[in-house]
């Protein structure tokens, strides 16, 4: 049943394999086409196309070195020279635009000689070690030498050369060998144009010219973020993946989807047998267009890490060693326990957590298992702790629980507001696209307590920073709304046509009250009134205003209110329903959008259909063949409370590490230890698994078929490239558990699960694997009305008819700084690590971030006698942990910051039980703390260390025993 997608066999994707030399002309959209003659072939192309690209489209392949279609033409190598009738000399075809009636000759004796001479010069300063070169078989220089028929180098090799220059091997994933460099500048241009970091440059002049990472720094010491765009762009072995140096050039490739963040980049998994040699971002991927970040491209080694679990294990209690057993025994053990617990404590005493890292099909199956086989609605997913307020807020105001745009839409935005998001770290590929638009002149407004890196975008035009105090988002968004209304910046025509009048009038009256003015809220937010006024004007008057937001919006006691405040702002200014505008939540995990769509929440069946809706429920009951509960089930924090209380006894967790990622760790640990049966399905012994009774080995994204849905609602195929290490894909394990519980499931391939999803979920009605094969990806809603999906939502009307303004009263969080806890802690992520770090900590990404630190402003540090690198005890109302200090001007005084990528850091020991009023999404972003110098780890950390050691030992003992 394994069906590999081969784009070369699909007409719509055929163009993505071939390098056409220069990009599709930016100004071509809607303009005339131009006809020309190339070597006697007549071809029509859009105005602005280069001669090189036009020729390539006619399958006339002009030799080239410095040109590649991911970068603007540069015209430095002179290899693509052609002759044009009526013009003098030999113009470079990459920098020559087509003209109507042009007659081009790409090959004759003179051109051949010219190209041979050019190649001869290149090769005179290039090592002739082709047979042992890692790029052998994948080298454009080699190909071009062959193509132009170079047979001799008349200059000899004794003169001055660059052949002895030392390699830079500082980056863990690629090497830089300047002896092989031809100075085509493709790496420098990729860093500038594609990634937007501007880390590379050509240093010196003439013969001394060389590619340099910053001021002669090693790559690891430079500004380089290791996205690998330069490595991909390099035509020689100068910049080369170490995995290719080690294993050789791959021999086959499969297009699949990255399992890291919610951007959902498409990749070619390049293979040798069932060994993954390298990941190369796929040019035909509509989310990423051939770009990637350090995680997706390089950090895949975890999939074959020795820590991977490969055998099911069971134990009676968590203070016992594990016992390796067969799949049958493990599943049987789990089912027997679940049934016994339900018999003793009732139907509602068990539940499960679906994974936002697993596929749509797997998530769908877990919630189906819970609703149909457990017989209750106690299902939830990690979106509870990240974007549940997005679901609530956008559904209330716009009628659909998802972002409104494609990623590409940002290229038409004139003003971009980024609130509580850090795209260059957390959504790097989209961050690069946004930076590209900022370099083109779009204005940027950042509302964030920290001075995020986006504010340091090289060559951008105008940037405004609104450094608000953590916890005051709603006061700020209300102030922005107030300015829009009171300064007459509304789009009245849009509001009249598209929005509910009563709701609008109530909101208008509310928001116009003087208490919402920037002058009145300045005392709350700390943001100067004039800055707020200017930001509102910029956004409302730009033409296309787009809002992007992240967990700095949702993870607050008023997360849902803030999401509605953002929607209000977009509605009032008419910034919704076309390209370049919209409300765009940046999703954290690869499939968190999908897990929400697939009915992971306790109150909603797949497709956001409420469990109390008798018609929707009836359709599920008919297909699933069981009666379903019509009352919502428990959410994750409710499950924890019920577990501690003793009414909730068993939990099935697939691919989710609640013990590390959820707030108030000691509370979570107390809940997990209260359970009689914890079943964990994961690829590693994660923190949650240390509290488990049944351990079911999971499969990585490379080991299964399925789909992920990214932050732009794009459904992308995940394709199996290697066998599942433990013998089963995750959906098969869930199916086995259902069968063991007496609820039959008999799928033979995930495509059959998708067919069932399409049957029951109106927004997925038109989705099938066949259609995904044909079109690459689809953005839901995809149904009879929109058979190819809907890139931009709400163009004509909202799913609820008219847009609904919501009243957004600012209610201050109860988590406040005082004399005992004078600082506010906020948490976030960094580029190299992903979420709880279970994957990235098992790769060389550790080299960039091997511990979580506490960032604090130098003035707060000075007050407490703290120096950079000191050990700090951080104490909140929930607990205490110890981290190293890093002084940082990015912070405002009074605010401290840390990441949560390492379990021993205990970042969540200090976060509290406070949560969003509507969804219980935890308030990770505001915790009142005190910090002081200490000399030893906290009591929790010491307990954690001992527990961790014991649990690893229990695992090691089980794995040593030969059954």
């Amino acid at each position, binding site marked *: 049943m394994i069906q590999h997608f081969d784009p070369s066999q699909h007409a719509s994707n055929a163009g993505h394999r071939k390098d056409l030399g220069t990009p599709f002309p930016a100004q071509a959209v809607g303009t005339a086409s131009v006809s020309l003659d190339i070597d006697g072939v007549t071809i029509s192309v859009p105005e602005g196309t280069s001669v090189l690209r036009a020729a390539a489209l006619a399958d006339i392949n002009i030799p080239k070195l410095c040109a590649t279609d991911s970068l603007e033409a540069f015209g430095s190598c002179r290899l693509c020279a052609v002759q044009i009738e009526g013009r003098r000399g030999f113009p470079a075809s990459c920098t020559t635009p087509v003209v109507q009636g042009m007659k081009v000759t790409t090959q004759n004796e003179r051109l051949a000689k010219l190209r041979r001479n050019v190649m001869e010069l290149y090769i005179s300063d290039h090592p002739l070690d082709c047979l042992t070169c890692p790029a052998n078989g994948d080298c454009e220089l080699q190909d071009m030498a062959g193509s132009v028929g170079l047979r001799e180098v008349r200059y000899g090799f004794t003169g001055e050369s660059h052949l002895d220059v030392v390699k830079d091997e500082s980056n863990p994933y690629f090497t830089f060998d300047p002896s092989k460099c031809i100075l085509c500048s493709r790496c420098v241009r990729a860093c500038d144009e594609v990634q937007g970091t501007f880390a590379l440059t050509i240093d010196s002049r003439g013969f001394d010219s060389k590619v340099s990472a910053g001021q002669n720094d090693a790559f690891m010491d430079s500004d380089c973020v290791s996205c690998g765009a330069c490595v991909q762009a390099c035509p020689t072995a100068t910049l080369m993946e170490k995995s290719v140096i080690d294993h050789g050039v791959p021999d086959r490739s499969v297009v699949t989807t990255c399992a890291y963040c919610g951007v959902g980049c498409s990749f070619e998994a390049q293979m040798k047998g069932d060994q993954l040699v390298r990941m190369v971002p796929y040019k035909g991927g509509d989310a990423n267009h051939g770009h990637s970040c350090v995680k997706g491209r390089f950090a895949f080694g975890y999939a074959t890490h020795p820590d991977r679990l490969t055998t099911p294990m069971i134990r009676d209690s968590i203070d016992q060693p594990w016992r390796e057993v067969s799949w049958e025994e493990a599943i049987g053990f789990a089912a027997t326990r679940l049934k016994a617990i339900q018999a003793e404590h009732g139907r*509602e005493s068990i539940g499960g957590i679906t994974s936002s890292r697993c596929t749509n099909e797997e998530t769908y199956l877990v919630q189906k298992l819970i609703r149909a086989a457990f017989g209750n*609605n*106690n299902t939830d997913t990690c979106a509870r702790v990240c974007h549940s307020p997005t679901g609530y807020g956008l559904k209330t105001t716009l009628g659909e629980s998802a972002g409104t745009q494609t990623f590409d839409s940002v290229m038409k935005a004139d003003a971009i507001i980024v609130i509580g998001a850090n795209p260059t770290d957390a959504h790097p590929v989209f961050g690069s696209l946004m930076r590209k638009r900022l370099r083109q002149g779009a204005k940027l407004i950042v509302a964030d307590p920290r001075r995020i890196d986006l504010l340091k975008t090289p060559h951008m035009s105008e940037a405004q920073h609104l450094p608000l105090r953590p916890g005051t988002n709603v006061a700020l968004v209300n102030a922005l709304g107030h300015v829009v209304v009171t300064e007459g910046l509304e789009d009245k025509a849009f509001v009249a046509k598209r929005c509910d009048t009563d709701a609008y009038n*109530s909101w208008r*009256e*509310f928001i116009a009250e003087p208490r919402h003015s920037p002058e009145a809220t300045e005392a709350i937010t700390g943001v100067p009134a004039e800055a707020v006024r200017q930001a509102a004007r910029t956004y409302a008057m730009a033409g296309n205003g787009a809002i992007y937001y992240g967990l700095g919006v949702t993870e607050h*006691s*008023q997360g*849902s*209110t803030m999401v509605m405040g953002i929607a209000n702002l977009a509605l009032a200014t008419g910034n919704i329903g076309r390209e370049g505008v919209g409300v765009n939540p940046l999703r954290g995990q690869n499939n968190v959008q999908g897990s929400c769509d697939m009915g992971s929440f*306790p*109150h909603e069946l797949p497709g956001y259909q*409420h469990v*109390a809706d008798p018609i929707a429920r009836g359709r599920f009951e008919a297909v699933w063949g069981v009666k379903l*509960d019509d*009352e*919502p*089930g*428990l*959410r994750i924090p*409710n499950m924890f*409370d*019920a577990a501690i*209380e003793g*009414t909730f006894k068993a939990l099935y967790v697939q691919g989710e590490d609640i013990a590390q990622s959820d707030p108030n760790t000691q509370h979570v640990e107390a809940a997990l230890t209260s359970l009689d049966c914890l079943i964990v399905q994961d690829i590693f012994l994660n923190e949650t698994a240390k509290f488990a009774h049944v351990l079911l080995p999971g499969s990585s994204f490379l080991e299964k078929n399925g789909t992920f849905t990214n932050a732009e609602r794009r459904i992308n195929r995940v394709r199996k490239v290697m066998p599942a290490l433990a013998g089963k894909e995750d959906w098969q394990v869930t199916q086995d558990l259902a069968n063991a519980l007496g609820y039959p499931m008999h799928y033979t391939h995930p495509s059959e699960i998708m067919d069932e999803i399409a049957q029951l979920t109106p927004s997925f009605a038109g989705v099938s694997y066949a259609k995904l094969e044909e079109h690459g990806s689809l953005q839901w809603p995809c149904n009879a009305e929109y058979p190819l999906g809907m890139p931009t939502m709400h163009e004509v009307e909202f799913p609820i008819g008219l847009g609904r303004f919501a*009243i*957004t*009263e600012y*209610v201050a969080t109860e988590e406040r700084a005082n004399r005992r806890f004078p600082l506010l802690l906020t948490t976030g992520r960094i580029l190299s690590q992903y979420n709880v770090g279970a994957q990235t900590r098992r790769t060389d990404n550790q080299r960039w971030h091997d511990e979580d630190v506490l960032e604090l402003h130098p003035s707060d540090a000075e007050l407490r006698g703290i120096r950079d690198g000191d050990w700090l005890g951080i104490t909140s109302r929930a607990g205490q942990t110890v981290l190293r200090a890093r002084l940082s001007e990015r912070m405002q005084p009074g605010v401290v910051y840390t990441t949560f990528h390492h379990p021993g850091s205990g970042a969540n020991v200090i976060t509290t039980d406070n949560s969003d*009023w*509507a*969804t*219980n999404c935890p308030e990770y972003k505001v915790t009142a703390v005190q910090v002081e110098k200490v000399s030893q780890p906290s009591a929790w950390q010491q307990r954690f260390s001992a527990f961790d050691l014991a649990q690893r030992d229990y695992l090691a003992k089980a794995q040593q025993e030969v059954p």
Partner: protein
Amino acid sequence: MSSHHDNQLIHMTNQIAANLGGGRDEETAAAATCRHLETFWARSMKHRLVATLEREDAPLSPLAKRAVILLAEGLARRHAG
């Protein structure tokens, strides 16, 4: 029955009422709060919350209390129906 758990439910209800209260008259706000509880809360949580109405000292805000009374009526109706 842990009163800690009860208090947590009461705290959550007060929070919902505070957020849905703004800009609305009390009757509409109470109805909106009740509808929120009906839509999002698990059966066991609803029953626990309603049971706190029996307690003299339950720290429900006036608006929250009105919403919980509405919720109790709804549950009774469903039970009867």
